């Protein structure tokens, strides 16, 4: 008898909801990039987090895990609702922009032209994507091991989520920035038979409308086009 066929519908042993924080104004319209706190949610972001809270009320998770940064902790606090605690882990923090935090995107990419294309590239004083995946991946492993929850909810960041999804799926890390992550988006990953399966990527309570209106005004989009990828 050869290997049994892989079921096309996985038997889900564990479900991970990986959420990106709601809207901030960290990347301003005039192109300056901020990562370090303080970066609050915008009023619209608070509304997005409330929409997530209504949706996650039915998800049987006893706590919500989050990066300790303002935007993720606040999103997680609203998402969790009154009855669930938020557990923060500093290893889920966003990729560090180092000395260039607050600089204009043109300055950032002049300093490190391959920053988004090369997972080993770091900004001066900052981190590479591979370094982020190493610490955030370790945090996720610890969270999954320590939790009895079948459904695990983690609120993190655009860079962290892209790196984690690529890492968990076994994608090439230099493709991680192909994964789109909008404000307050939800990714669903299912653990089955030793692998992570993609359930959902980048769903937001706003649905398609925002995508259809934005038409390419995505974070990193202009930078990716500049890199010809």
């Amino acid at each position: 008898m050869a290997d049994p066929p892989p079921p096309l519908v996985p038997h889900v042993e564990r479900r991970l909801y990986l959420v990106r924080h709601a809207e901030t104004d960290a990347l301003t319209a005039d192109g300056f990039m901020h990562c370090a706190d303080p970066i609050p949610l915008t009023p619209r972001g608070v509304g997005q987090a409330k929409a997530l809270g209504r949706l996650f009320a039915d998800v049987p998770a006893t706590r919500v895990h989050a990066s300790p940064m303002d935007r993720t902790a606040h999103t997680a606090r609203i998402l969790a609702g009154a009855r669930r605690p938020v557990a923060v882990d500093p290893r889920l923090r966003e990729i560090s922009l180092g000395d260039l935090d607050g600089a204009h995107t043109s300055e950032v990419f002049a300093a490190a032209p391959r920053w988004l294309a090369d997972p080993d590239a770091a900004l001066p004083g900052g981190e590479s994507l591979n370094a982020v995946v190493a610490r955030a991946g370790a945090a996720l492993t610890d969270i999954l091991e320590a939790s009895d929850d079948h459904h695990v909810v983690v609120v993190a960041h655009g860079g962290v989520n892209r790196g984690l999804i690529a890492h968990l799926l076994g994608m090439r890390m230099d493709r991680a920035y192909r994964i789109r992550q909008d404000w307050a988006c939800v990714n669903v990953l299912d653990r089955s038979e030793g692998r992570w399966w993609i359930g959902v990527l980048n769903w937001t309570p706003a649905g398609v409308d925002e995508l259809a209106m934005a038409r390419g005004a995505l974070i990193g989009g202009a930078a990716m086009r500049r890199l010809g990828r």
Partner: protein
Amino acid sequence: MPLVALLRHGEEDGTAGGRAPIESRSRRGLSAAGRAQAEAARDFVASLDAARVACSDRPRAIETATIVAAGRPVDVVPGLNSMDLGEWEGRPASELPELGRVLGDPALRPPGGESLAELLTRFAAALEGALPAEGDAIVVAHRMTNAVLLANLLGLPAEDAHLVQQDPGGVTILAREGPRLRVQMLNVSPLDPLRTRAVTSRG
């Protein structure tokens, strides 16, 4: 940046809870749940300005596309069809010990059927041909057609295509940037976006 809504057809009649025989060429249409999924998908993609709606020639895809099209004409494109299973068509998966190997090796094919690599080539070409010169599009196809394409777009090897889940009536949004397709949103079930109703038993 034109958008493409790539759907898997809604639940097929008589397949709730899983289908024992593997049937690519089934002539059955949608179940009541499948029609509800298609209606929810229609509402979900309502903000797209679809210049074309295309689907495979399987009845479950045509019925889904007709609902999602909301009165627009539907073009049937046989190149969008589900995987050609050759001599395995209609047989229970339990009788096909080689099925797992074929789905785990893009070079292998079922006797008289097509491999995952062939499926990807055939489907990607049909999809490209089905897209309009301008404007958005809606395309209704199948679990493995979509999975092999999406795995390729995401940079997953073809043998891992089955890791890309496609729920019945699930909606994936792609952006067209010149000849490139980029995944914007993947496998959203508008009736159950967090998939809390999907089977999640433990142990």
